[in-house]
């Protein structure tokens, strides 16, 4: 369990660092203006990101809850870098859907643990099961903006975690459902993955490929919506 103890320490340090680094001198207008300009590229420390104060507080609370849950289940939890980012290159035009509904999706999101996972140690692997995170996505296309629910599993070995699960995205105009998989490391503080989602409701017949990065300083959601099915083996 030495690794899990280390995760606990890392998680604690991350929460404390987040609390120390949280900025409260946010100009809401400036934030909105930056967000409207699109995504930013380039690495920046996510702990130093300017986020709206209520969001920061909520995120901090979420992280503390995760810490508590982490201690309860033995350490590792896939808590995610909160809402970050997104201020893209000022010159980059915001992608819009074409006449056939095809669009490059680009946006930001925040993640909050909704249901903690159980933890079972099997040999060298710690199996996390039953966890659910709530993902709020703000994207250039309204079909990709909404609240996602990621029901995840993670197998942790050393500092490498394999994660997978089902994803449901609820938007104002329809829904998306499918599976996601990816990897996580740094005690769950960093993750990358992809999802293949099929549309429901008004989105029936469309596919949404969703790639996400929750690496500190590089947090984004990117993808594509197009008519047709996901690729088949």
């Amino acid at each position, binding site marked *: 369990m030495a690794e899990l103890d280390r995760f606990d320490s890392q998680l604690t340090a991350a929460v404390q660092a987040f609390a120390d680094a949280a900025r409260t001198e946010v100009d809401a207008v400036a934030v909105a203006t930056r967000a409207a300009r699109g995504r930013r590229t380039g690495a920046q420390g996510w702990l130093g990101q300017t986020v709206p104060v209520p969001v920061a507080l909520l995120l901090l609370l979420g992280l503390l809850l995760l810490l508590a849950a982490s201690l309860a289940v033995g350490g590792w939890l896939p808590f995610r870098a909160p809402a970050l980012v997104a201020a893209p290159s000022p010159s980059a035009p915001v992608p819009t859907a074409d006449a056939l509904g*095809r669009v490059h999706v680009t946006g930001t999101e925040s993640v909050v643990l909704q249901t903690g996972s159980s933890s079972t140690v099997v040999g060298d692997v710690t199996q996390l099961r039953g966890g659910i995170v709530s993902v709020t996505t703000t994207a250039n296309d309204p079909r990709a903006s909404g609240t996602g629910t990621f029901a995840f599993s993670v197998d942790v070995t050393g500092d490498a975690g394999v994660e997978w699960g089902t994803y449901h995205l609820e938007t104002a105009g329809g829904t998306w459902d499918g599976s996601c998989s990816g990897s996580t490391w740094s005690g769950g503080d960093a993750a990358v993955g992809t999802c293949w989602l099929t549309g429901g409701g008004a989105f029936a017949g469309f596919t949404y490929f969703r790639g996400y990065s929750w690496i500190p300083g*590089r947090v984004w959601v*990117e993808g594509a919506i197009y008519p*047709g099915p996901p690729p088949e083996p």
Partner: protein
Amino acid sequence: MRSTIRAIATLLCGAFLVAACAGAGATPTPAAATLPPASPTAAAATPTIAPTPTPPAMTDGQGPEHFTGLPGTEPYLEVQYTITPVGDVEQYRGGVSAWDFKTTDPRMQGHASFAFSLDAHGTLGPEWGTVTITNTDGRWAGTWTGKCAGGTWNTGDWIVFSCWLVGSGQYKGFSAYYSISDIGPGSASMEGIIFPGSPPKL
């Protein structure tokens, strides 16, 4: 979709390998020192040292590890593809692109080839196929059908792609998650993990 063609050859690894993980700070730059002028003035006595990016730490190449990409070579097309228009879609089939790369884990490096398919829906689309990575100690193969896939857009300029790989040779018993993203200037990145066991059953 002419750019998609370029994308095939470059997207997967192009920006990615060249920029090679600029986002990951993977390009170590020698410290640039401003030498003092010849005349020994007091003001010039202290050289100015520019900040040097910290190179990523290398793993010990054992057991489960996270890796991040290091600069590699330009990709190239090993096998030409065909293009077949089907309705609003252009189907790219039969192509193979290749590149050489390194990461912070010595096990995840070598020659990579990607036997790809791509459905171009205008300026974007899904792509999928089989990734094989070989080096002197072993091989990583995305033979888990259907699990090497991603999306590309902006006529192939940008990409997010991931693959579950299974090791053989000295990597037998290990699997890897290998992801590539290039979503804008200076954003190219390769990330992944190596872990014991099999990829998840999705």
